């Protein structure tokens, strides 16, 4: 009796164990497969960047010798020489120029887009629908179309060969995309807090400053990040408006070193490219959390 009673559960146990084992094996195989695919696709995507960083430490002769990224004779000559450039200015000057464009542009964008988006999202005024529709319409307009009229306009203002054409339009909420993004984000925020603030005696601007802006922070961070990256990468804008070398931002300066050197010093160019992408990369990783929160809340909802 006792034997019988004991042996039955034991066989059940064994069976269960086998099933569990099989399950675990399947899980391990599927996980390996999944991560294997993800890793290899990720590697393919990232390889150019890895190669870029590796190649910037190679001597010129070695760069095109193979597709590997590990330098055989590591050197920082590319960085040292690249920084000096073939002009009277160091690369630091070009970085400084870039920041002279980026900083006012970001600050201007953040302030103006917040104010405009707040107006569109929270107030009723005559012609609101038409104005908002035209704002969205400018989103769909290709940039190229406005280049020439804009150029003529800025020429008449006497702004050529200065940083002004590069950041002033953005400081007047010229980037419809950011306004749209903030409007969408604001629509998802309940109005109660703003109403509570009004009952507490806050004026419209105080409500905006003390209540709306803190609530908008994640979206604002992604607006600033987008603007930062796009401005860092902008090549055409500076190419059109800036003609003196001492005002070149990094995007133009990189091209400069290709133009003026007879035999291309590839490792200098690559080294400076690495430096050029560094700020955007660092800023992105630092603010990654807010960035994703900002776009997912602003872009998907609503």
């Amino acid at each position, binding site marked *: 009796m006792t034997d019988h009673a004991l042996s039955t559960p034991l066989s059940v146990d064994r069976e269960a164990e086998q099933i569990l084992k099989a399950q675990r094996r399947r899980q391990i195989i599927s996980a390996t497969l999944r991560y294997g695919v993800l890793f290899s696709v990720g590697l393919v995507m990232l390889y150019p960047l890895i190669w870029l960083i590796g190649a910037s430490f190679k001597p010129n002769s070695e760069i095109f010798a193979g597709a590997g990224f590990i330098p055989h004779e590591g050197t920082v000559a590319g960085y040292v020489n690249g920084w000096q450039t073939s002009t009277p200015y160091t690369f630091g000057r070009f970085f400084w120029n870039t920041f002279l464009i980026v900083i006012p542009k970001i600050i201007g964008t953040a302030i103006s887009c917040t104010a405009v988006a707040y107006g569109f999202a929270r107030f009723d005024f005559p012609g609101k629908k038409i104005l908002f529709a035209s704002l969205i319409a400018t989103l769909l307009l290709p940039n190229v179309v406005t280049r020439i009229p804009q150029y003529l306009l800025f020429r008449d203002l006497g702004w050529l060969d200065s940083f002004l054409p590069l950041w002033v339009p953005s400081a007047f909420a010229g980037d419809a995309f950011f306004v749209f993004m903030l409007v969408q984000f604001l629509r998802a925020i309940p109005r*109660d807090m703003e*109403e*509570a603030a009004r*009952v507490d005696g806050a*004026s419209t601007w105080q409500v905006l400053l003390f209540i709306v802006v803190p609530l908008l922070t994640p979206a604002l961070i992604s607006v600033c990040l987008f603007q930062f990256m796009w401005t860092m990468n902008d090549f055409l804008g500076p190419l059109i408006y800036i003609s003196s070398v001492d005002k070149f931002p990094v995007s133009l300066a990189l091209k400069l070193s290709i133009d003026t050197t007879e035999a291309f010093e590839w490792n200098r160019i690559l080294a400076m490219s690495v430096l050029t992408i560094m700020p955007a990369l660092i800023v992105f990783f630092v603010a990654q959390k807010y960035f994703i929160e900002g776009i997912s809340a602003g872009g998907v909802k609503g």
Partner: protein
Amino acid sequence: MARLQLRNLEKDYGGFKAVHGINLDVNDGEFMVLVGPSGCAKSTTLRMIAGLERVTGGEIRIGDNLVNDKAPGERGIAMVFQNYALYPHMKVRKNLSFGLRLKRRPKDEIEQATRDVSNILEIGDYLERLPKQLSGGQAQRVAVGRALIKKPQVFLFDEPLSNLDAKLRASMRVRITDLHKQLKADGLQSTVVYVTHDQTEAMTMGDRICVMKEGRIMQVADPVTLYNRPANSFVAGFIGSPEMNLMEADLADSTLSIGSQRLPLGSDVMARLSQMAAKRLTLGVRPQHFRVAGSDEAGTLAGKVSHVEFMGHEVYLYVKVEGSQVIAVVPSAQYDRSKISGDTVYLAPQSENIHLFDRVSGENISLAKLD
């Protein structure tokens, strides 16, 4: 004096009239409850008083001032919102003092006021927390505190308890009423306008209750009057739980005909009818005002029991009388357990608690000489 007066107040949403010229006086220190089903414009009315909705017509006076065109912050009001509306990025302390800081009050005054309010509402332990770290009840207390700290002339509450669970709601109800009494006893401004859709809240909290329907005021009265002397069939059906039974009835020769049944009215009932001419009526009897009678008694309504709910000290009888569902609440002790679904019962309405309404206008015509 913080009297609140609404004169012919109207709200028009581009062609849709939400509020139809209402008149309401809230006395100094009074706890006035606006109650009604959803869509009755009670919240819109409150938001107009707060200044969050523009007034389309009529006047709002707080104290002696016409406030129609004043900003919410200048009206001397404070408001508690349904979902608390605490500023999520500020700690409780900053939430409480936001209004005072905007007015650039001296630091020690703000400090003192924060301490006083947090003592009254027992939120002293949470001052350094963010709103998301608070439970619903705590957040609601902070929201009340934010109103209290401003020492407003009029407090406005917009369904403040509807996000809380039943138990917490009951305790917050008591807390808010106590707070109102305390303010009144301390001689502080304590006029309250409180919006709710819950008639229990209205009955337990209000000094007076304003029942609204579709942008119109149906009746303004204290809870006892509202319950005993509803001005019309809407108020009668809205106030009281379970709600009043309303049945179509025709009157002829002091006898009501309800379907095929006859209910003779006593002379006491006939004496208080104001409009003898009206024949097409609605009979209203509260579930508590029925008595289970014997089959041989006169003045009863016969019906089949459709189901029975045993509530402990009383029993809810759901009875089909002439095709309409009637609820009778009878004390358990008097209830004959042998009556079950399908059985016929005879319900005798207490003649002093019979209400008769004009079927067309809904007006209660049985209120004359009731005093």
